């Protein structure tokens, strides 16, 4: 939870820059460890499903990626709301830093969904509720990034992006509900990926561990990106000049 005293201290770009710099390697390390553990569980420990071939193991990437893509969007919206409410620059920078990773994970989940679908259901793409919602989530991420890229003034870019992220997050449940509705109506021949066979608990553990890996990676990537944004925005500030001198 945000420690009130520290909120303003760490919300200063210079302090954040230093702190983030020290934390990033740990998060990358944690991500690597969780990833290895998760892959071990998924590829080695989890039983072979008798209905699907070994190819099903791709869900150990697909499902965690999908979970994280949705989680990151909510976190992004949270930072956006903080930024609009308290007008803190760091909040906006965090939202902007998270978006590309969220988009990437959405993209990964779409592709791995296709890779799972082909050997299992015979089609590269099925318009089931979850995949379709992921696709729309991908568009929401792209919209956010495109809007920020189109605005030159950083302050306007921050706030406009924050607003669209909030509008998006309010719409996500509505979109998900409507897509589920649409999918059940047009069920016909399509098979739903959500009707996966009941999972052995080891599979769930594997996916959770991979999700944790993705989470650690996301934090590391977002912190790195935030540092770049800080350097860019604060390039004329004294602390940046001093730091670059010290490094030289």
């Amino acid at each position: 939870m945000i420690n009130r005293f520290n909120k303003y201290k760490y919300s200063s770009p210079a302090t954040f820059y230093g702190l983030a710099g020290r934390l990033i390697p740990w998060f990358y390390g944690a991500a690597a460890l969780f990833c290895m553990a998760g892959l071990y569980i998924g590829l080695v420990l989890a039983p072979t499903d008798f209905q699907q071939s070994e190819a099903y193991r791709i869900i150990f990437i697909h499902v965690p990626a999908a979970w994280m893509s949705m989680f990151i969007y909510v976190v992004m919206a949270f930072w956006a709301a903080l930024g609009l409410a308290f007008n803190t620059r760091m909040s906006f920078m965090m939202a902007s830093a998270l978006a590309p990773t969220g988009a990437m994970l959405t993209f990964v989940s779409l592709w791995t969904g296709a890779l799972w679908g082909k050997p299992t259901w015979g089609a590269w793409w099925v318009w089931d509720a979850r995949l379709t919602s992921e696709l729309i989530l991908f568009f929401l991420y792209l919209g956010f990034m495109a809007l920020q890229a189109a605005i030159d003034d950083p302050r306007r870019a921050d706030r406009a992006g924050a607003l669209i992220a909030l509008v998006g997050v309010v719409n996500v449940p509505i979109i998900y509900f409507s897509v589920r509705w649409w999918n059940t109506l047009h069920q016909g021949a399509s098979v739903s990926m959500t009707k996966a066979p009941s999972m052995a608990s080891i599979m769930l553990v594997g996916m959770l561990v991979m999700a944790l890996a993705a989470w650690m990676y996301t934090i590391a990537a977002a912190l790195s990106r935030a540092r770049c944004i800080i350097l860019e925005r604060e390039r004329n500030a004294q602390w940046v000049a001093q730091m670059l001198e010290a490094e030289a």
Partner: protein
Amino acid sequence: MLEGKDLACVRGERTLFNHLNFSLQEGELLLVQGANGSGKTSLLRLVCGLMAPEFGEVLWRGEKIGAVRESYHAEMAYFGHAPAVKEDLSAFENLDFACRLAGIPVSRDEVKGALGHLGLGHCLNLPAKSLSQGQRRRVALSRLLLAKARLWILDEPLTALDQAALKLVQSLLGEHLRQGGMALLTTHQPVMIPGIAPKILDLSA
């Protein structure tokens, strides 16, 4: 009545001004001067409430303008760079709509009279796109006659005006100030109003 306290403005990555203070009482005229790009327009927009300052506040009758938005806007008239004139509407329609949207009830004769006062009597019903820049600015300025605003915030009101119009606007300003109104303007040209010594706020300093 109007006060700016410790105002700071940042556009993009430049700090345009910092620790700016000013005050404006009834009957006073404040001229904002400075080189191009020094933040004159930004200051005016800040005072209007179109932009939030990076730091500091603007007070109207002792209250922050954010808190008394409605009453502040009812007593204020702003003229920016763009004349705020719709091309597809005639001069008459422009002024009529502008007044009604601002909540000022006006009659046909009052609108015609105001436009006539600014030398536009002969082109009342022409679409604004066939008017010159100077004429469009005069349509915009004609609102001052009807708005009965206490505070006028004018961004370069004298550009594109010919000698006659210049004199007219200066006399309007004088009249307004004598009746207890206030005005905040930016201008590149000298403003001569008999009997009024303007305060100067120089942003290049």
